């Protein structure tokens, strides 16, 4: 599903932040990406999302080499993954419904289909009935669940999350993690960057550990 082959990322200012990173995620697998702050976790996710390009090596997503993807194709590749962010990145001026619908609107779905899928996604994250609310009227845990609903609404085969529980207390974090396990059951591949060791250890999933840009455990 997702393969990193000897990936190196160099920033002119900071030098190599990733060095020869290789790993392979199989379909339907939940994987944690962990390591100290500045280890390069976010950088790996940005490379997958084509927010950055790797300096050396190759990333293969669903059989496609990301180095061959040009700027015009980037949006179409991004539609194959759902992103979840630490700060949720919701549109504050739009309702929960509109936020979750965004990926579907972008792909040009008809509004019946959009309505049906948004409801299904909100149901999965336990927010059915809050469609008309605005993000600021929700708790942090609820906002993150809106973010998750948005990430899964167009049924992408890959979900990537950058510190999804970074702003939440342990109890809410555990709930969010349970949600990811539900998606795993329908075959979604999930990569979660997190430095919350205790949470990770409780979950019994595969762990990739980064140290100063190098993979030390996989």
């Amino acid at each position, binding site marked *: 599903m997702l393969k990193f082959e000897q990936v190196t990322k160099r920033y002119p200012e900071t030098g190599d932040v990733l060095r020869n990173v290789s790993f392979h995620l199989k379909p339907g697998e939940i994987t944690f990406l962990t390591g100290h702050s500045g280890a390069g976790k976010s950088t790996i996710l940005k490379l997958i*999302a084509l927010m950055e390009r790797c300096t050396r090596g190759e990333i293969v997503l669903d059989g496609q080499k990301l180095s061959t993807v040009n700027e015009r194709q980037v*949006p179409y590749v*991004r*539609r194959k993954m759902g992103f979840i962010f630490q700060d949720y*990145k919701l549109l504050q001026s739009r309702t929960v419904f509109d936020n979750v619908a965004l990926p579907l*609107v*972008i792909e040009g*779905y*008809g509004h019946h289909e959009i309505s049906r899928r948004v409801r299904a996604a909100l149901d999965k994250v336990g927010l059915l009935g809050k469609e008309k609310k605005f993000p600021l009227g929700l708790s942090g845990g609820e906002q993150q669940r809106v973010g998750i609903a948005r990430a899964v609404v167009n049924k992408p085969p890959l979900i990537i999350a950058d510190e999804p529980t970074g702003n939440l207390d342990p109890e809410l974090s555990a709930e969010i993690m349970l949600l990811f396990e539900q998606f795993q059951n329908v075959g979604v591949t999930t990569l979660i960057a997190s430095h919350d060791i205790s949470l990770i250890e409780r979950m019994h999933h595969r762990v990739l550990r980064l140290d100063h840009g190098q993979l030390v455990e996989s």
Partner: protein
Amino acid sequence: MKQIDKYPHKIQVKQDTRQTQKAGGSFTDRLIAWRDQHAQALFSSLGGLFAKPFTSTMTIGVLAIAIALASGFYLVVVNLQQLTGGLEASNQISLFLRDEISETRAKQFADSIRKNTDVQEVNVISKQQAMQEFKNFSGFGDAIDSLEKNPLPIVIEVLPKDALVDKEKLTSLFENFKKATEVDFAQIDLEWVARLQAIVSSARLAAILLSTVLAMAVFFIAGNTIRLEIHNRREEVIIAKLVGATNRFIQRPFLYTGFWIGFLSGVAAWFIVTFMMLILRSSVENLSGLYASEFHLLFFSYFETLTLLATSTLLAVIGSWLVLHIQVKQLKPE
């Protein structure tokens, strides 16, 4: 479609959509969705303008004034052109006779002029007639009554044949009458008509230049408005990009905002100019009544109204489009 073909998974999602939607062809559904998207962007961008009435009014106000200046000046020139166009036919020659020439002598002279084949009409204005006319128009009635002797000369108005448009021939005809012993001095309208026409054609050039500059202003103001709008909504743009929006999709609502700004400014400018012309009308028609001319103030025609709206809309859209083309590409999620 070519893009999507590269990703087998995507196709699977689409097939999934097809099955869940009504039978009757997903192509139509997609087309409807596409149309809905445009309609939605069109109206939500208008709603966006109404949601920020202060900012929108400021922008549209500035644009409307620029457009009104250009189109108002244009309308003034059009009216002046109409005015001088009407004057073209009146290549009238006025012969002011010497003071000692009597009325009878004047009539004989007029008859001799009538025999000239280049002349269409001859009109004698007696001293009394001239005095009466002068009293009516000048408002110096009482002052003139107190004069002992009528100081006005007899005037013979000569209207050359319409066919006589050649300036050389007219001038020679004029010189001919001027030499007559009865004539004190002669005047032909030709000179000031030509001068007026020269002024109008300069004014027209000025209108074109002014319009070009103001069109550029509309272009830049609209572009800058959209630039600010993108800046204000950069968070939204970045999020949309992250969930797979193409640049085209992101640009669409901004482009419609540009469309509305241009269109509404055009409409506002139309009203500003028309309102000013209405104020001008009564005073201009007074003036033309005085000259007994067939002059009616021209307002925007349908075609001109359409051109005005189309031009202002197009300029704003192009300005927006250029800014969008540069800016949306640059905004990247970091």
